[in-house]
């Protein structure tokens, strides 16, 4: 029976491999995700392009805002504040060290390993003749008969050597021994069975060695490691793909389903909903009510002492990500109202404007020096940024109640808020001249991003509005969009800290496509984030001439195919700024579906009203019978049309009914 032996990896062979594998498992994915993050960030070029207001205005909470702004934002600060990077550096140095340890220990051959060629000091390709001659020489040299004058110790050494030489020779020549060697790696047959336990040497030897430590080490491998992995997995499961905590996502979905449509949704509603988010609770250790209070304070420009103010801004800075998640969920429910209200709430929070009781002048309240609505004149009928840029400095000072010396600054800020002017918008199917039924269309919009101060039409060459269809453009119609630089319309709100985490959610415009027929969203909410801001710098004359005007292309890919039957389908395309007030645009858009020369149609179009079938079906079975409309009406205006329409509208009121929530 072979001897069983537990070997604590004294010569440090197994454990470095173990550690290095562990390190690689953790480090490689982290590094890849980190590098790709850095790469996408630098390719979006936000560092270079951020437009800075030329404003000297400082809000009451300026210090706290700038403390949070760009945290993890730029330069060296960025390098050293990044925990991931520190982790990566430490991790990889450890990796290298362990790699070095492996490299060096590998050179120390295990003396127990039986290598007949080495013992005989010959090449492994040596022929039997060579082996024989070497063996003869060596056995003469180490023969025990020649030991005469040596000490006992030396004698023993030589004897051992002699035995080894004999074994080695046999291993290479004798059949049985050779077989043993090939089978067990040793000419004597099976050796002791070694169970390697990956334990570093210091745990077994030296001062630290104790059974307790060994137990701890084993428990770390057997318990702590699976625990960490489980925890990581749990973390993956606790967040949605959009990075929302699943509890938050559930709360949002629940709200949408149980919401009572008889109640109006406004910014306060959104704030109440957002305050329930798990993210805000865990970031601040505050209750939902306290968070709601902080957000309302932001909306109403209420400022606190430095510590609480910092907490308020921290909460506010996290809101855009939550709004983004809410919009994603609401859009899946095709709930356009909630999407719009959520985006609006985000802007009001960013600009710290509460529109209640002053909805006509909200655009003015986002300007620097306009700290309170009471400052604004009640008499001067100017409500928009566009109008403000047309009046004199004196009038601006009177309008927003500021010192005349600051009026130019207000004007310049108002002029630098980007607005959209659409030049052309159409549905397009690559390679087709018309929109055909049952095909994958996208919307192409040619637009100008311009200053509110630029008036009238720009004479833009028709050429700039056309896209030549090349093989490339047919293969990837969106490359023209992707080739444009990323817009940096980051809000320079004096009251909002733009951080690395929230910058992607406050940049540019959200794009919503609504079906006119039922007022619901046709598709998920997209973002307009690429284009040219250079028009903002143009003078009125240069803008009107149109020579230097840069046209931005925006494309919206529709996830559902076009309707199966030809006809006109009406939509509304909305651009909603994610951070500015008065920078939105809605345009009506008609999809003219035409039959191509030969076509066969099949399937169901689901932009229009996908749930109609199921609901109508459910209704019919539950209802049993449909009732015709009343026949004795005597209305003065539209009653006749209504009677005709009422049957077809049946499902709409049904939908409304189902939306009814619990009344509380």
């Amino acid at each position, binding site marked *: 029976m072979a001897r069983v032996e537990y070997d604590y990896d004294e010569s440090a062979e197994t454990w470095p491999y173990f550690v290095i594998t562990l390190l690689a498992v953790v480090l490689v994915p982290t590094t890849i995700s980190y590098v790709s993050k850095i790469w996408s960030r630098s390719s979006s070029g936000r560092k270079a392009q951020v437009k800075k207001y030329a404003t000297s205005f400082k809000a009451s909470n300026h210090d706290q805002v700038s403390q949070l702004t760009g945290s993890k934002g730029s330069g060296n600060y960025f390098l050293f504040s990044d925990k991931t990077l520190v982790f990566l550096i430490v991790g990889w140095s450890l990796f290298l060290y362990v790699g070095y340890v492996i490299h060096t220990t590998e050179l120390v051959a295990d003396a127990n390993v039986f290598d007949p060629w080495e013992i005989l000091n010959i090449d492994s390709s040596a022929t039997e003749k060579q082996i024989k001659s070497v063996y003869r020489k060596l056995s003469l040299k180490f023969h025990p008969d020649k030991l005469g004058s040596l000490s006992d110790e030396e004698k023993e050494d030589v004897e051992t050597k002699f035995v080894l030489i004999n074994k080695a020779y046999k291993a290479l020549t004798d059949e049985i021994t050779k077989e043993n060697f090939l089978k067990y790696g040793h000419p004597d047959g099976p050796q002791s069975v070694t169970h390697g336990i990956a334990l570093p040497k210091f745990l077994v030897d030296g001062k630290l060695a104790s059974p307790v430590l060994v137990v701890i080490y084993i428990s770390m491998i057997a318990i702590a490691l699976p625990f960490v992995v489980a925890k990581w997995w749990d973390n993956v499961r606790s967040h949605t793909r959009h990075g929302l905590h699943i509890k938050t996502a559930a709360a949002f979905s629940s709200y949408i389903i149980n919401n009572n449509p008889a109640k109006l949704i406004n910014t306060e509603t959104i704030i109440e909903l957002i305050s329930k988010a798990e993210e805000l609770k865990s970031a601040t250790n505050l209750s939902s009510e306290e968070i709601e209070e902080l957000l309302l304070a932001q909306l109403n420009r209420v400022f606190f002492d430095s510590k609480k103010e910092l907490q308020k801004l921290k909460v506010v800075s996290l809101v855009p990500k939550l709004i983004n998640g809410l919009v994603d969920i609401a859009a899946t429910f095709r709930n356009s109202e909630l999407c719009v209200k959520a985006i609006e709430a985000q802007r009001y929070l960013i600009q710290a404007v509460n529109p209640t009781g002053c909805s006509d002048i909200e655009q003015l309240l986002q300007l620097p020096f306009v700290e309170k609505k009471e400052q604004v004149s009640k008499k001067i009928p100017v409500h928009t940024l566009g109008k403000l840029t047309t009046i004199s400095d004196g009038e601006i000072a009177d309008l927003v109640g500021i010192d005349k010396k600051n009026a130019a600054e207000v004007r310049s800020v108002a002029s630098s808020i980007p607005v959209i002017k659409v030049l052309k918008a159409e549905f397009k199917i690559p390679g087709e001249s018309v929109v055909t039924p049952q095909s994958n269309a996208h919307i192409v919009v040619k637009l100008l991003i311009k200053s509110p101060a630029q008036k009238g039409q720009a004479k833009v060459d028709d050429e700039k509005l056309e896209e030549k269809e090349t093989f490339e453009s047919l293969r990837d119609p969106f490359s023209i969009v992707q080739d444009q630089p990323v817009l940096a319309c980051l809000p320079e709100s004096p009251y909002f800290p733009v951080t690395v985490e929230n910058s992607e959610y406050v940049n540019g415009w959200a794009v919503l496509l609504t079906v*006119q027929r039922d007022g619901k969203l046709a598709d998920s909410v997209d973002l307009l984030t690429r284009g040219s801001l250079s028009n903002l710098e143009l003078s009125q004359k240069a803008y009107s001439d149109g020579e230097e005007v840069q046209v931005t292309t925006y494309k919206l890919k529709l996830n559902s195919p076009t309707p199966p039957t030809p006809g006109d389908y009406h939509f509304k395309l909305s651009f909603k700024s994610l951070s500015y007030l008065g920078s939105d645009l809605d345009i009506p858009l008609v999809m003219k579906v035409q039959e191509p020369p030969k076509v066969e149609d099949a399937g169901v179009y689901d932009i229009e009203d996908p749930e109609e079938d199921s609901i109508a079906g459910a209704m019919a079975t539950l209802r049993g019978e449909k009732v*015709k409309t009343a026949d004795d009406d005597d209305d*003065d205006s*539209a009653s006749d049309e209504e009677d005709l329409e*009422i049957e077809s*509208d049946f499902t709409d*009121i049904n939908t409304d009914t189902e939306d009814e929530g619990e009344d*509380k």
Partner: protein
Amino acid sequence: MLPFSYDVSSKKLKVTGDYADLEYDIQQLNTLSGEILANKADVPSPPSKESFDKKLSHMAQKLHESAVSNIKTGKYPEAIKLLTTGLEMVNRRPKYESFQMTLSEMTIFIVTRADAYMMNGDFEGAFNDADLLVTLLPSIPDNYIRRGVALFKMGRYVDAKNNFERGLSFDPDNAKLKKELDFVLKKIDEENGEL
């Protein structure tokens, strides 16, 4: 156990305590049981034209007629009062009666009241009624005119524009909608200080 009690003589339920949710449900039940108790049949018959209360329809019709004549003579507040009464009357119809017929009876009052509000200069009132009409009957262009004009009058030009455009999507040749849209587009340009 829910905190409510049943009164044998009045056959009504009563909430014992302050519970808003329960209050609503108990009240709804009292209304429905009252309606069923007043009905001779042992179980309410399924909704149909025959089971729809004609007497009430007739009264509602009379109310509506007098409201319209009030509007014609410019007595808007009186008309609004009559129409609100009529709406409440229809609102009290038993819940097991035909929903479809109740709805069309109701919309007649809401339509007329929206117009009366508008003529009376109560644009919030006009907007609200038009808003409900759009929810109930979303494919009638006139409702978008009502809602759009009310919004316009409240200075919400962009919202008004969107309403006129949506109305036009149901009837692209509607002259009134086109006119209103042109008007509001000019107004928006003016607001933005366009050349």
